[in-house]
Each structure stands twice: as structure tokens, then as C-alpha cells.
């Protein structure tokens, strides 16, 4: 379990004064047995207009492969500052990535969406593997991914 306290590199939306009220949120991503090497996962948030708001986590250490996380890469231009300090190892097939971080209350029930882009060596790129609206109601409800993610849950 990886724990992270308010060191998010989240941009504008999340650095509002409302950051004062934040609470720990656990993000749990379980991969299915897709029969490939470790998956790169980018977890990030878009605002109500669909624009990139900030990154939450990058699973996968080698930036040369980030271009395969298509949507994240298009949104950030692969900017390493976006994931500075929130990078970990890639996640093997069938494994679970669990991270806990402090997320601003203002992100919830305000039209923000949490996205996961996924990519695996020699397999398809899967942008928008998961896209789940951040709502207090939706917390704790598993959401399936498109190709690699068996289910994703955020818990407050």
C-alpha cells in the first residue's frame, strides 16, 4: 500500500483554497490476467469541461514508454513535472495497485472524472481504460475497465 499526503502535483482545479478541506481517498486498481508484461497505468483527473486537471499516479518508471498512455500523453505532452513524486512501478497482470492520497473535497460531486490510461508492451494501448465520475455516492463501487483493468474502486 502506497500512502501519499497532499504532495499532489494537481494543477489549478485542485490547488483552490478548498484544498484546505481534503480527505484521504484510497484508489484500488485490480488488473485481469491479460497475459502480458507489467502494465503502465496513468491515473489522472479531468474537469467538467473534459480538460486535463491533474495527475494522481503514474505506475511505470520509464518515461520513454509514456507516449503509449495516449490520452494522458496528449493532455500533458509527457511533462515529467506532472508526475513528479507520484511515480511507482508498473503493475503485473492479476496484481492490484492500491494508493491512498489526500484529495480535495471540491473534486467530488463537481463534474470531475477520474481516468486511467493503460499500456502493455507488445499489446494494445488502452487510453481511457477507466473513466469514472468522482462522486461521494460512487465511492466504494467497483467499475470495470475496458481491457486490462478488472475493476477500479475509490474509497473515502
Amino acid at each position, binding site marked *: 500500500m502506497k500512502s501519499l499526503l497532499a504532495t499532489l502535483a494537481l494543477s489549478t482545479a485542485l490547488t483552490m483554497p478548498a484544498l484546505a478541506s481534503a480527505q484521504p481517498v484510497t484508489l484500488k486498481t485490480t488488473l485481469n490476467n491479460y*497475459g502480458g508484461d507489467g502494465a503502465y497505468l496513468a491515473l489522472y483527473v479531468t474537469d467538467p469541461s473534459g480538460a486535463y486537471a491533474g495527475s494522481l499516479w503514474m505506475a511505470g518508471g520509464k518515461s520513454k514508454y509514456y507516449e503509449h498512455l*495516449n490520452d494522458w500523453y496528449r493532455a500533458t505532452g509527457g511533462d515529467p513535472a506532472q508526475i513528479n513524486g507520484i511515480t511507482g512501478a508498473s503493475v503485473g497482470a492479476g496484481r492490484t495497485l492500491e494508493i491512498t492520497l489526500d484529495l480535495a473535497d471540491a473534486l467530488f460531486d463537481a463534474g470531475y472524472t477520474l481516468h486511467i490510461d493503460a499500456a502493455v508492451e507488445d499489446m494494445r*494501448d488502452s487510453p481511457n481504460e477507466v473513466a469514472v465520475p468522482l462522486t461521494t455516492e460512487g465511492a466504494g463501487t467497483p467499475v470495470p475497465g475496458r481491457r486490462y483493468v478488472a475493476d477500479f474502486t475509490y474509497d473515502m
Partner: protein
Amino acid sequence: MIRAFHRWPGLIALALVTVLALSGAVLAVFPVAERIAAPQAGAELSVATLAERIQTIYPGLEQIRRAPSGQITAYWFEAGQPGAAVIDPTTGRGVASADPNAFQRWLTNLHRSLFLGDPGRVASALGSVAMLVLSVSGILLVARRVGGWRNWFSRLRGPLAGRLHVEIARVAVIGLLLSSATSLWMTASTFELIPDGGPLLGIPAEVSGQTDAPLAGLAMLGDTPATELRSLSFPYDGDATDVFTLKTDRGTGYLDQGTGAVLAWADLTAWQRVSETIYMLHTGQGAALLGAVLGLMALGVPVLGLTGLTIWLAGRRGRPRIRANQRAARAETILLVGSESGSTWGFAATLHEALRAAGQSVHIAPMSSFAPERYAHADRIIVLAATYGEGAEPSSAKGFLTKLDACSDALDIPIAVLGFGDRSFPAYCAYAQTIAEAVEAKGWPVLLPYDTIDRQSPQAFARWGQALGAVLGIALELHHQPTPPATTELTLQSRRDYGADVQAPTSILRFSLPRATFWQRLTGAGSTRFAAGDLIGILPEGSPTPRLYSLASSRRDGFLEIVVKKHPGGLCSGQLTALEPGENVRAFVRRNPAFRPDRSRAPLILIGAGTGIGPLVGFVRENEQRRPIHLFFGMRDPQSDFLYAQELGGWKDEGRLSRIVTSVSRGQRPRYVQDAMRADAPELVRLVQSGARIMVCGGRDMAAGVADALHDILAASGLSATKLKTEGRYVEDIF
């Protein structure tokens, strides 16, 4: 120094390098299989047409990729389910699963990271460094061994493990260099030490906002041949701001989904091109044939490892423990050893032991620790020196000659130099000879004249020991048997006697083949496999030292035949020439691959005198393909010692022997075999020019006379006997 750079990386990284090479060799198969199996796109097919075909069948198409092998894979979503398949470009239909092969993935992870992630990648890279160091040091060692780059592919001599090691290495090394160097580049690329990432393409801010244009209407897709495609990603369905992402062999760009306009484009960078080329060279993806060749070369690595280990172990085993070694400052006799594989140490230890037993105080040391200023009580220095390759110093003699040259004054300690070597090498005992000459040039007193031991001959060593003992005034019996051979009983079948009238009693002895056990047949051990020119070691009663004779027959002939001359007072020759049919001797076969005719149809020039005719007769006897053979045979008197006279005539009639030139050394006009050769010079030159191979068998004096004659005859026509020797076209078997 170079040897240390070869030995230690080899021993330390043996297992790692073997794993990398074997996994790499198997991995090389996949690109070949993929290249064969992948349906290929025709040259006229455009990306637009290909994409249309696929989209017709898979409407939710998201991405098309083309591997360097030409294999096209499509990825789509259908009713929310992800789909993927290998595509036949002529139909656009999926023909095979796109899932990665689990075994290939497993092997790839073993090969590049030993299943250990990034630390494993570093370990693999260190294995590549070891391979690189081994290749470079190995190249230098081979060049030294064969006597220069120009002789890179010359014939090899010496023990099997060493020959096999070099034989494989000199072919495989180019592939091993390429594989290890490229792998280091790839590791550096993986760890992002090389700026070979794609160029950053700005996301187009302005798009036409149109969607649903037909693929055929997108100009660039229509212009790009499918064979140049790397990948094409489709815009999200219904997202008007999204674009096509096209990657080709030239670069990457974004296309407007409505107008097909190129919104952004970046060519591949030079770094990218270099990295891609290196990736292709290493993996064979996009160059399957090269990959297969590299894979085959990598298969040599386990054999190189095993033979290398064998060479190293043999060297270690060969070096015996020396008991009670006197200190250099106290010893009367200084014994200096220059050994390459360790076998010379065995002889030195025997000599050390025998001298000590005779009451001498002896200091034994490698030649590299030569320190004349410390030899305060020394009465004599004995140097036993092997030779490395074409006359280089052996490993334990490092720096000896420099130290010798540095001694300004003549040393007043008498010196004896004994060389150890193999006459099948052109530079026979060249290093020992250099020392002997250096000592002579310095005017130092000589204890014993320079002498040599051919192929670890125990007889020659015992003979030299007697001479040393005579000088020292002690009885010195040197019995050194390098590796005690397993002997079998041989029964004499028949004998024919010659030469009694010319004081050279000589017998042709024919022994029955010993009955081989099944195991011996299976492993080729014992005397079950032999050919004319191989040696037979006879253990005479009353001596542990075997005597070697050349075989005049092959396994196929069904008997073992040797020619023996009775030496006055000779222990073994006396017993052999007295042997009656039905009686037994103890013997073993020793292979002698250096003295054997090649398999070509080029003419053979066989030169021999006296008992030296033995192996030559064997070659003629088995000459079934009727290759031209010219035999020069020297004898004393045709009435008395014309060995094999009858058979030779018969073989000539049958065409197994083209010509026989005899020379007779007794009588009115005495003539030696070298005289006959000089008289036949034009024909010899013609034969050599037509590719003939020369094989000489006989005593030392005769061989020296023949060598001089050959040198003169060939030199007059601009040919070189030395060059023939280097090419393996001039071989000698001298006793």
C-alpha cells in the same frame, strides 16, 4: 595480460553468458517464424485502402500496427469488448490471434532481465560486457596463436579442446561482438541514457471540426504505402477534436479526421534511427535472416564455455605440487619453467624429484621469476620452456627475455635449455630456441647443448635426462608419463623381416585387432578407432615409459601394423623384434590428427626413409579414390631393406600409387632421399603449384635434409616451405 582478461571474465560470467546466449539463440527463431507466417502487404497497397478493408470488417477499429516483419495487427472495440487480430492485408480479415506468445515473452524476460526487473537488466548488461571483453581479448589471443591476422582461418593444431575453442570462436566472434555491443546500446536506451525518444509533437489546437470523412479522402493515408506503415490510431468515435495519429518509417504526425490535412509532422530523429537499427540488428525483427545467423553463432557460446573450462582445468591439473623446494639463494640447481598449458610443469616436477633423489638441492620456479642476482650458490641453471603459438613466450615465462637481456655480464653459471613443443607447428620450440640463441649470443657457458622434446615424448625426455646425468656425474632416470594411458594386450599376427644384411634389422609387425567392448565401440575409446599416421604406444617389459611408433594401417584394414628397427641395446625395439606370432605386448593408441592426409583430391607427396615408410604405406593402402600419390623412399640396399617392395608394386598397378622414387644410400653411388628430390625438382615444383600436400616421416637428420632440399627447391621457384607449413600443406612426423 590479455589472457587474464579472457580467463577471468570467462570463468566468472560462464553461467550468465551461457543463459543469455542460449535464450538469445532460441529468441532468434521467432522473427523468422513471424516473417514466414505473416501475410505480407503488396507494394501497391496504400494505408488508406488497408484501413478501409479492416474497418469494413471491424467497424470499431481503433489502431492498426505493422511490425517490422510485415505482420499487421488491428485493435478494435465491438459492443464494448476489446478485440485484436493479425490481419491479412488482402482481405482485411483477422487470420490469427494477436496475443503475445507466452513462451516468447518468458524467454525475452529471461534474456533481458533474468526475471529480476531493472537489477536483472543491469546483470544482463554486465553479462554483455563480459561477452564483449571475452570477444576482444579472444580476437587478440587467436591472432597471436595463428601468427597474425592474415592467418585468421589457418589450420589449427594442438589438443582438441583448444582447437574446437578457436575453431568456433573465430567464426562466431563477429556475431558475439555484434550481439553484445548492440545489447549494451539497448540497455542504455531502456535506462534513458540515450536521447532516442520520439520528438515531442504539439497537440494541434485547431481542427476542422468535421468528422466521418471517408478514409480514401485522407490524402496522406492514400499516399503512404502500407509497407511503410508503423501504426495508425483512429480518433475517438464522436470526438470532433480528436485526430488520426500516423507513424511511418519516416516519422510521426497528426491528421485531421475531416479534411485529412497534416496538422503536425515530425521526422524520426537521428538518434531514433540509430536505436531502431541497433534494435533490428540485435533482435532480428525486420532482419530475420541476420537474426538467425546471430542466433546460430550464439549457440557456439556454451561450447566455447565448456572447451574454455576444459582448457583451464587441464592447465591447472597439469601443474603438479612441488615438494621440498629449496630457496633460490641456497640451491645448487635452478630449474626455470616456462609452461603454457601446465604440461611442462609435469616434466619439471619429475626432473626436480629425480635431482633431489640424487642428493641435489634444487630450486624450481616459473621463468618469469628469473633473478640471477639471487642465485648465490647455483652451479647450474636448467630452463624448460614451452612455446605459445607462433613463437611467443608461454604464460609462466612472462618477461624472461627482457630480464635476460638486462644482465649485462655473462653469467658464470652454466645453462641448459630444453624446449617442449609439437613438431606439427611451424614454430616448433621457437621460444626455447630464442632463449638458447640469446644465451649463446651472451657467451654464457653451456651446460648441455640445446635440445627439444616433441609432443611430450617420454623417451626423448628420458634420453635428455641421461645426458644431463652424465654431465652431472650422477645416474639420472627420468620416467615421466604425462597421463598414464589405458593399455590393451595386442597379439602378433605375423612378421616380415628386412635389413639384416645391411646391419639394420627391421621388421614389419602385424597385430590382430583387440576385441573391443560395446562401451569402447560406443565411445570410440581404446584402440577401436585409429588411422594410418596415428601412434601406437608400446610399454616394454621393465620400463614404465612407453615408446611411440607410427601406425601403417587403419581400422578398416582390420589389423594394426608397425615398422620397427632394432636399435643396438634398445629395450623396446629389442623386445618387439624378438616377438613371435601369438605373443603379446601391452599397447595403447594415441591419435595424431596433425599427420593425416586431407580429404582433397590434390596430389600427395610422401617422403620417408627407413621405418618412416610405415604411415606413408598406410596412406597409399587406403587410397581408394586413386588420388595421385608420389612416394619418395630412401633405403640402404634394395636387396635387403626395401620395405613393402611387393605391395608397393601392386598398388602402383592398381593406381593407388602414381609414382615411386627410391634412393639407395649404400653401394656405388650412395644417394639419400633429399638427393632424389633435388633431382626431381621441376616435377615437385609443378605438383606443389597444383596444390599438392607434402608429408614427411623419418628420423631427425633425414627430416632436416628433406626440409633443406624442399626449401631450396621451392625457393628457386618463388614458393615458400614456411608458408606451406603455415597452411598445413607441409607436415612432418619425426622420431
